Protein backbone atom coordinates (compact mmCIF):
# COMPACT_ATOMS: atom_id res chain seq x y z
CA UNK A 1 0.00 0.00 0.00
CA UNK A 2 3.10 2.22 0.04
CA UNK A 3 2.62 5.11 -2.39
CA UNK A 4 5.59 7.45 -1.81
CA UNK A 5 8.81 5.68 -0.93
CA UNK A 6 11.92 7.38 0.37
CA UNK A 7 14.88 5.09 -0.01
CA UNK A 8 16.72 5.96 3.19
CA UNK A 9 15.03 6.47 6.55
CA UNK A 10 18.17 7.42 8.46
CA UNK A 11 21.49 8.72 7.13
CA UNK A 12 24.61 9.99 8.84
CA UNK A 13 27.03 11.91 6.66
CA UNK A 14 30.11 14.05 7.17
CA UNK A 15 30.49 17.71 6.34
CA UNK A 16 31.39 18.17 2.68
CA UNK A 17 30.01 14.85 1.50
CA UNK A 18 27.63 14.67 -1.44
CA UNK A 19 24.26 13.29 -0.38
CA UNK A 20 21.51 11.81 -2.53
CA UNK A 21 17.98 11.39 -1.24
CA UNK A 22 15.75 9.34 -3.50
CA UNK A 23 11.96 9.39 -3.72
CA UNK A 24 9.68 7.20 -5.82
CA UNK A 25 5.89 7.43 -6.16
CA UNK A 26 3.59 4.86 -7.73
CA UNK A 27 0.47 7.01 -8.16
CA UNK A 28 1.38 8.47 -11.59
CA UNK A 29 1.38 11.95 -10.05
CA UNK A 30 2.64 14.88 -12.11
CA UNK A 31 3.85 16.96 -9.16
CA UNK A 32 6.61 16.08 -6.72
CA UNK A 33 8.05 18.05 -3.83
CA UNK A 34 10.91 18.08 -1.38
CA UNK A 35 10.43 19.65 2.04
CA UNK A 36 12.53 19.82 5.12
CA UNK A 37 10.97 19.86 8.57
CA UNK A 38 12.63 21.39 11.62
CA UNK A 39 11.30 22.05 15.14
CA UNK A 40 9.89 25.55 15.41
CA UNK A 41 10.21 26.15 11.67
CA UNK A 42 7.69 23.66 10.35
CA UNK A 43 7.62 22.42 6.77
CA UNK A 44 9.68 24.42 4.31
CA UNK A 45 9.61 23.80 0.58
CA UNK A 46 13.02 23.21 -1.00
CA UNK A 47 12.20 22.33 -4.62
CA UNK A 48 9.27 21.05 -6.60
CA UNK A 49 8.63 19.67 -10.05
CA UNK A 50 5.51 19.81 -12.20
CA UNK A 51 6.79 17.52 -14.91
CA UNK A 52 9.68 15.32 -15.93
CA UNK A 53 12.93 17.27 -16.29
CA UNK A 54 11.25 20.39 -14.87
CA UNK A 55 12.11 21.91 -11.53
CA UNK A 56 11.18 25.02 -9.62
CA UNK A 57 12.81 26.57 -6.58
CA UNK A 58 10.86 26.60 -3.40
CA UNK A 59 11.41 28.82 -0.40
CA UNK A 60 14.83 27.50 0.66
CA UNK A 61 16.70 26.07 -2.37
CA UNK A 62 20.19 27.21 -1.38
CA UNK A 63 22.59 24.31 -0.95
CA UNK A 64 20.30 21.84 -2.73
CA UNK A 65 19.63 20.64 -6.24
CA UNK A 66 17.12 18.17 -7.66
CA UNK A 67 16.75 15.77 -10.52
CA UNK A 68 13.63 14.38 -12.17
CA UNK A 69 14.56 12.14 -15.07
CA UNK A 70 11.46 9.94 -14.77
CA UNK A 71 7.93 10.81 -13.77
CA UNK A 72 7.93 8.56 -10.73
CA UNK A 73 11.32 9.54 -9.32
CA UNK A 74 12.48 12.81 -7.74
CA UNK A 75 15.93 13.08 -6.21
CA UNK A 76 17.27 15.67 -3.80
CA UNK A 77 21.01 16.33 -3.90
CA UNK A 78 23.14 18.04 -1.31
CA UNK A 79 26.31 18.89 -3.22
CA UNK A 80 28.40 19.52 -0.09
CA UNK A 81 26.57 18.68 3.10
CA UNK A 82 26.80 21.07 6.01
CA UNK A 83 25.75 20.70 9.64
CA UNK A 84 22.86 23.15 9.16
CA UNK A 85 21.34 20.68 6.70
CA UNK A 86 20.74 18.21 9.51
CA UNK A 87 16.98 17.76 9.30
CA UNK A 88 14.02 15.58 8.43
CA UNK A 89 13.51 15.54 4.67
CA UNK A 90 10.05 14.78 3.33
CA UNK A 91 9.14 13.93 -0.23
CA UNK A 92 5.57 14.36 -1.44
CA UNK A 93 3.59 14.03 -4.63
CA UNK A 94 0.24 15.29 -5.92
CA UNK A 95 -1.91 15.04 -9.00
CA UNK A 96 -2.21 17.96 -11.38
CA UNK A 97 -4.88 20.45 -10.29
CA UNK A 98 -5.61 21.82 -13.73
CA UNK A 99 -7.38 25.16 -13.42
CA UNK A 100 -8.85 24.46 -10.04
CA UNK A 101 -8.71 22.27 -6.98
CA UNK A 102 -6.24 22.20 -4.18
CA UNK A 103 -2.81 20.70 -4.05
CA UNK A 104 -3.40 17.64 -1.87
CA UNK A 105 -0.08 16.04 -1.05
CA UNK A 106 0.81 12.45 -0.27
CA UNK A 107 3.99 12.24 1.77
CA UNK A 108 6.66 9.64 2.19
CA UNK A 109 7.82 8.49 5.62
CA UNK A 110 10.74 10.90 5.67
CA UNK A 111 14.53 10.68 5.68
CA UNK A 112 16.30 11.77 8.84
CA UNK A 113 19.69 13.19 7.83
CA UNK A 114 22.41 13.96 10.33
CA UNK A 115 25.50 15.82 9.11
CA UNK A 116 28.49 15.60 11.43
Amino acid at each position, binding site marked *: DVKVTQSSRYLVKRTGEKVFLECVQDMDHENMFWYRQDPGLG*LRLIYFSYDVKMKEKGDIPEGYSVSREKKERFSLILESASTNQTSMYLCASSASQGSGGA*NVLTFGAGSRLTVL
Partner: protein
Amino acid sequence: QKEVEQDPGPLSVPEGAIVSLNCTYSNSAFQYFMWYRQYSRKGPELLMYTYSSGNKEDGRFTAQVDKSSKYISLFIRDSQPSDSATYLCAIWGRNAGNNRKLIWGLGTSLAVNP
Protein backbone atom coordinates in the same frame (compact mmCIF):
# COMPACT_ATOMS: atom_id res chain seq x y z
CA GLN B 1 2.38 38.75 10.00
CA LYS B 2 2.63 35.08 9.12
CA GLU B 3 0.19 33.88 6.48
CA VAL B 4 -0.90 30.99 8.71
CA GLU B 5 -0.67 30.91 12.50
CA GLN B 6 -1.02 27.76 14.56
CA ASP B 7 -0.38 27.33 18.27
CA PRO B 8 2.33 24.63 18.57
CA GLY B 9 1.11 23.43 21.97
CA PRO B 10 1.83 20.93 23.35
CA LEU B 11 -1.74 20.03 24.18
CA SER B 12 -2.38 17.26 26.69
CA VAL B 13 -5.89 15.89 27.30
CA PRO B 14 -7.43 12.85 29.00
CA GLU B 15 -8.88 10.07 26.92
CA GLY B 16 -12.47 10.82 25.87
CA ALA B 17 -12.02 14.61 25.86
CA ILE B 18 -13.11 16.85 23.01
CA VAL B 19 -10.09 18.42 21.37
CA SER B 20 -10.11 21.72 19.50
CA LEU B 21 -7.19 22.59 17.21
CA ASN B 22 -7.09 25.93 15.45
CA CYS B 23 -5.38 28.00 12.78
CA THR B 24 -5.81 31.56 11.61
CA TYR B 25 -4.80 32.89 8.24
CA SER B 26 -4.32 36.33 6.77
CA ASN B 27 -5.18 36.09 3.05
CA SER B 28 -8.88 36.06 2.23
CA ALA B 29 -8.06 34.70 -1.24
CA PHE B 30 -7.14 31.31 0.23
CA GLN B 31 -9.73 28.77 -0.81
CA TYR B 32 -8.90 25.26 0.35
CA PHE B 33 -8.25 24.14 3.88
CA MET B 34 -6.63 20.92 4.94
CA TRP B 35 -5.67 19.14 8.11
CA TYR B 36 -2.82 16.67 8.16
CA ARG B 37 -1.87 14.32 10.98
CA GLN B 38 1.74 13.37 11.58
CA TYR B 39 2.76 10.56 13.88
CA SER B 40 6.21 10.59 15.38
CA ARG B 41 8.93 9.69 12.83
CA LYS B 42 6.40 9.47 10.00
CA GLY B 43 5.32 11.74 7.16
CA PRO B 44 2.12 13.82 7.37
CA GLU B 45 -1.08 12.19 6.11
CA LEU B 46 -4.21 13.99 4.94
CA LEU B 47 -7.01 13.90 7.49
CA MET B 48 -9.62 16.38 6.26
CA TYR B 49 -10.04 18.67 3.26
CA THR B 50 -12.65 21.44 2.97
CA TYR B 51 -13.40 24.18 0.50
CA SER B 52 -16.25 26.29 1.76
CA SER B 53 -17.22 27.80 5.07
CA GLY B 54 -19.08 25.53 7.43
CA ASN B 55 -18.51 22.10 8.90
CA LYS B 56 -17.38 18.80 7.47
CA GLU B 57 -17.58 15.60 9.48
CA ASP B 58 -15.68 12.35 9.16
CA GLY B 59 -16.28 9.98 12.04
CA ARG B 60 -14.93 11.55 15.23
CA PHE B 61 -13.35 14.43 13.31
CA THR B 62 -15.01 17.70 12.31
CA ALA B 63 -13.33 20.42 10.27
CA GLN B 64 -14.78 23.88 10.55
CA VAL B 65 -14.03 26.89 8.35
CA ASP B 66 -15.04 30.48 9.09
CA LYS B 67 -13.90 32.52 6.11
CA SER B 68 -15.26 35.78 7.51
CA SER B 69 -12.94 35.42 10.52
CA LYS B 70 -10.18 33.62 8.58
CA TYR B 71 -10.26 30.89 11.18
CA ILE B 72 -10.21 27.12 10.77
CA SER B 73 -10.67 24.43 13.40
CA LEU B 74 -10.39 20.70 13.77
CA PHE B 75 -12.47 19.05 16.48
CA ILE B 76 -11.80 15.54 17.72
CA ARG B 77 -14.60 13.90 19.71
CA ASP B 78 -14.03 11.06 22.16
CA SER B 79 -10.28 11.42 21.77
CA GLN B 80 -8.18 8.24 21.92
CA PRO B 81 -4.52 7.64 22.77
CA SER B 82 -4.07 6.73 19.09
CA ASP B 83 -4.92 10.36 18.24
CA SER B 84 -1.65 11.43 19.87
CA ALA B 85 0.22 13.11 17.01
CA THR B 86 1.08 16.48 15.55
CA TYR B 87 -1.73 18.13 13.59
CA LEU B 88 -0.83 20.51 10.81
CA CYS B 89 -3.17 22.88 9.04
CA ALA B 90 -2.45 23.65 5.41
CA ILE B 91 -4.11 26.30 3.29
CA TRP B 92 -4.11 26.51 -0.48
CA GLY B 93 -4.93 29.35 -2.79
CA ARG B 94 -3.60 32.25 -4.78
CA ASN B 95 -1.43 34.74 -2.93
CA ALA B 96 -1.06 38.47 -3.58
CA GLY B 97 1.16 37.72 -6.60
CA ASN B 98 -1.56 35.49 -8.08
CA ASN B 99 0.63 32.45 -7.56
CA ARG B 100 -0.96 29.27 -6.28
CA LYS B 101 0.63 28.40 -3.00
CA LEU B 102 0.31 25.87 -0.19
CA ILE B 103 0.99 27.41 3.21
CA TRP B 104 1.61 25.27 6.28
CA GLY B 105 1.00 25.91 9.94
CA LEU B 106 3.77 24.87 12.33
CA GLY B 107 1.65 22.06 13.76
CA THR B 108 0.11 21.43 17.18
CA SER B 109 1.42 18.53 19.23
CA LEU B 110 -1.40 16.57 20.90
CA ALA B 111 -1.07 13.94 23.61
CA VAL B 112 -4.15 11.96 24.66
CA ASN B 113 -3.53 10.28 28.01
CA PRO B 114 -5.22 6.94 28.89
